[in-house]
């Protein structure tokens, strides 16, 4: 029976609401596929750990990492680290957005300015945010700020570039309509350009969230005294590989949740903006 369900799930089933028991089963199987992928990942991890290829210090099993998480949860050190990471992430990300979006609007609206700025951005962008770290320490001192600076840099470029291209791609007919109805220059930005560009800006902001979260760990590993990145460095110093893997898994899981959350928000906004024709009268 279950074998049949698996084989039935394999060929692409025609779209449409499931009607009979068999297609319901297929639909259920499809819903479980993402979890199956994750389960496979953990299984491979487990088998690798159990294979004896590495010692348990080199590669702890998933259950060891789970035990480690219980340990840091019980002694109360986990949540402050998570909290510190989230706070850094949020402040750096919001700061990046607050700078990148207005700057992107300006560059988008002034083609000559963008002609000058574009090569600057393209030269700076390939420099890994981590490469800024030594300078960030020199300029900002040791502590929170260098880590925040790295996350800032990571989030800045996707947010900026998405905003510029969003403004460039505003449908010219929207601007014609605006001019036709006598829209004044100072009204144009907020009444037409920003709302018209918004869906694409939002997409860039989502990319920026991902980038910011990726570089959070790097930033915290380099200088911070708290956070998930620090937890990894600290665990390394004590050769607690189980804690390292636990922290890595947690970084992945939180990143996943954040991305899903932002994607959800994006869909909601897109629907409002009339881009996703979900609800029909």
């Amino acid at each position, binding site marked *: 029976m279950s074998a049949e369900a698996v084989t039935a799930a394999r060929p692409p089933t025609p779209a449409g609401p499931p009607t009979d028991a068999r297609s319901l089963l297929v639909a259920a199987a499809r819903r479980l596929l993402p979890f199956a992928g994750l389960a496979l990942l953990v299984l491979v991890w487990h088998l690798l750990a159990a294979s004896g290829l590495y010692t348990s210090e080199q590669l702890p099993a998933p259950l060891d990492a789970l035990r480690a998480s219980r340990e840091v949860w019980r002694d109360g050190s986990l949540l402050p680290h998570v909290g510190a990471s989230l706070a850094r992430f949020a402040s750096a990300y919001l700061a990046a957005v607050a700078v990148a979006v207005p700057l992107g609007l300006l560059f988008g609206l002034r083609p000559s300015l963008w002609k000058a700025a574009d090569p600057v951005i393209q030269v700076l962008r390939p420099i890994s945010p981590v490469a800024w770290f030594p300078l960030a320490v020199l300029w900002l001192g040791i502590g929170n700020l260098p880590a925040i600076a790295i996350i800032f840099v990571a989030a800045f470029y996707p947010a900026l570039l998405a905003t510029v291209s969003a403004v460039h791609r505003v*449908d010219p*007919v*929207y601007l*014609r*309509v*605006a*001019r*036709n*109805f*006598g*829209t*004044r220059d100072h*009204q144009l930005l907020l*009444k*037409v350009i920003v*709302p*018209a560009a*918004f869906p694409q800006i939002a997409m860039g902001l989502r990319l920026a969230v991902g980038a910011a979260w990726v570089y959070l760990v790097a930033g915290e590993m380099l200088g911070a005294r708290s956070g998930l990145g620090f937890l990894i460095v600290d665990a390394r110093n004590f050769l607690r590989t189980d804690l390292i893997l636990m922290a890595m898994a947690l970084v992945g899981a939180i990143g996943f949740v954040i991305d899903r959350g932002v994607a959800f928000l994006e869909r909601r906004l897109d629907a*409002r*903006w*009339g*881009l996703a*024709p979900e*609800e*029909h*009268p």
Partner: protein
Amino acid sequence: MSAAAISIEQATRRYRGGDALLDFSLEVPAGEFVCLLGPSGCGKTTLLNLVAGFDRPTSGRVLVQGRPVEGPDPSRICIFQSYALYPWRTVLGNVEYGLEVRGVSRPQRRAVAEEYLRLVGLEGFSRHHPHQLSGGMQQRVALARALAVDPESLLMDEPFGALDALTRIRLQDEVARIARARSKTILFVTHDVEESVFLADRIVVMAPSPGRIQRIIEVPLKRPRCRTNDGFIALRAEVLHELGVVHPGEPLRTSHHLPESMP
């Protein structure tokens, strides 16, 4: 007839590829419904853009109410084939737009917008967003948005070109009714012969490369018009003939095998 609402005096619009419009002259009295008819590339849209103020003639003049057109103005509202509604605004918000940028107070513009939504038969849809409406309904919203600022003239660029045949007929009825009731001057670009015969007081048949007037055909049919009576069909045949669609051996009065498309 009153003074010319729109007068185009020997307007030429030259692009690198050639003359989109050459030495074009036309007088449109206030309240007249003029259809610009012709194949693509005959300069219909170019002409509309000149009158709208989106474009300037290379030579010649475009006058509206006796004054040269300097740029777009709410007294001449364009209606586009793509509706060009703002997707982030509700239907009501779209219709209010022109009044909003003009600084009309919220309750006042709301009242006006609702009145025009009633006029186009969409009073129940003010809270919807454009993407929730069919193409025909979206074009009605665009029409209400245009009428809400009480323009002298409407410049319609193949407004029903993207709609299915039945919806198009309904909207033609609507536009004919509104044009009469509100006595707007209308320039209406189309390549649909029947549409032009149904709507226009005068049909300006245009020819391409360079864009120019081939012939101006008066439409003396009484309003409201009937698409199936003999006078209508005869005139339609005449316009088709003018465009080079000739059916040898086919008497004008029983011509129900006219092709849908033009060369």
